[in-house]
């Protein structure tokens, strides 16, 4: 591992200034991904700026409804929060489906969103990877790509975003609060992550040195009826092969509102706007859910080894929505 300097700033401005001044610096939060990538030689920061003791903890109800989640709130703490369990089951389920108990005790809210892909080629410094080493090529494009993208990939990168939490936040229209050298701003969650295009090394729309300070989850009464279904190769402690976050609001049998997002299908958490448009205003049936998934997945371009993900995501969409529709009867 490359040697590094270590700083533990006490306020956000100091942390942002430290990052801004050093192109090889990195923020350290829970460390569950970064420390591993440093051991693998994939990330080689010369300065770690420890954000764990910044005043960025706590889960607070917002006056207008909804929650404000501090950046350093641990995944386990957020999943156990009574308001999350009652009002946002999709969020609690996504958190609890991820990683292991130990990792959830360490991993933070913001760190989870900024974790790197688990593409095997990205994690192997002996392999070509445009994300790790821009311009080196993509060994995954024609390699062992069963776990990788079916939507929105480029010839330069077919990686997927590994987070479960991010899929739920995409469905909930969360907002990310960001501190930058110029000040603070809000970023709609669905605009946080980028498509790979020609620059897969740029994973978010944040500028260098930006620090996520909190995530706001807007009020959404319909989210009390919500679900996160994750398909994986083991029953526990495994990344998703495909996942669906769903919120369903029915007026009688008619879909008044619906939120759908997919995980492990693209470089970013995938909000399924086309599927939602197919469902909204129509009487819900499992057949309609299937048609909605088809509309979303019409743009899918499976790789050699992951064609199964298209019918898998379709089936999980139908199951998630149908179970939510039946749970109210």
């Amino acid at each position: 591992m490359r040697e590094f300097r270590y700083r533990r700033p006490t306020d956000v401005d100091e942390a942002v200034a430290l990052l801004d001044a050093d192109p090889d610096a990195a923020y350290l939060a829970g460390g569950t991904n970064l420390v591993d990538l440093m051991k693998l030689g994939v990330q080689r920061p010369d300065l770690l700026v420890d954000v764990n003791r910044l005043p960025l903890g706590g889960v607070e109800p917002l006056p207008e409804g909804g929650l404000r989640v501090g950046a350093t709130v641990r995944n386990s703490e957020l999943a156990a929060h009574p308001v999350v369990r009652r009002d946002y089951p999709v969020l609690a389920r996504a958190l609890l489906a991820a990683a292991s108990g130990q990792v959830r005790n360490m991993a933070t809210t913001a760190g989870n969103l900024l974790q790197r892909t688990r593409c095997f080629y990205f994690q192997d410094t002996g392999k070509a990877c445009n994300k790790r080493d821009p311009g080196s090529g993509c060994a995954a494009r024609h390699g062992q790509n069963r776990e990788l993208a079916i939507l929105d990939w480029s010839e330069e990168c077919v990686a997927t975003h590994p987070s479960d939490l991010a899929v739920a936040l995409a469905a909930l229209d969360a907002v990310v609060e960001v501190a930058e050298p110029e000040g603070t701003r809000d970023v709609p969650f669905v605009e946080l992550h980028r498509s790979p295009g020609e620059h897969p090394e740029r994973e978010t729309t944040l500028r260098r040195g930006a620090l996520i300070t909190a995530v706001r989850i807007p009020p959404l009464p319909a989210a009390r009826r919500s679900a996160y279904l994750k398909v994986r190769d083991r029953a526990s402690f495994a990344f998703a092969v495909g996942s669906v976050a769903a919120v369903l609001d029915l007026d009688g049998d008619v879909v008044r509102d619906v939120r759908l997002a997919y995980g492990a299908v693209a470089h970013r958490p995938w909000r399924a706007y086309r599927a939602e448009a197919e469902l909204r205003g129509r009487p819900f049936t499992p057949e309609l859910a299937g048609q909605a998934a088809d509309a979303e997945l019409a743009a899918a371009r499976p790789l050699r080894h992951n064609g199964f993900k298209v019918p898998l995501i379709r089936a999980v969409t139908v199951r998630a929505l149908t179970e939510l529709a039946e749970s109210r009867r």
Partner: protein
Amino acid sequence: MQNRSGSASIAGDERSSRVAFTVNGDRRELTLDNRTTLLDTLREHLGLIGAKKGCDHGQCGSCTVLLEGRRVKSCLIFAVTLDDCSITTVEGLAGPDRLSPLQEAFVAQDAFQCGYCTPGQLCSARGVLDELAEGWPSAVTEDLTGVVRPTDAEIRERMAGNLCRCGAYPHIVAAIRETAGER
């Protein structure tokens, strides 16, 4: 590989840091290379070799210890981040004269074979028992707002971060269930 080490760019006094924390109730002060994990600190600097290095990548759970009472993977934590923190390792689970009820249950239920993963299993199980007592839900909890029971399914899901290559899982589950029942 010399250029990859990057050592030339960092002054000697910036490569290491002074850190003080409590391990099993004892105050410890150390100067450590910033790269030293908590696991290596325990094993190589403090003589506490209970926590094991299985995978060193956060996947096997054999390095599990308790940090501020919560179970964590010590291989993924840089020790210099732990100033003023409190750590409990497997060496700190037992009382001065006798094993803890959890450890006694592991013995009674024959919950290990080679024993390599056992310190991590014990620390993780200690954390699981506290999480259950606090009502934390898991992925297999059916009612997120209901009471959490220490069923076999709950224990198996919560212990998924600890591998046992001898396959002592059924006995580990039994030992944890027995301990949870006594609380």
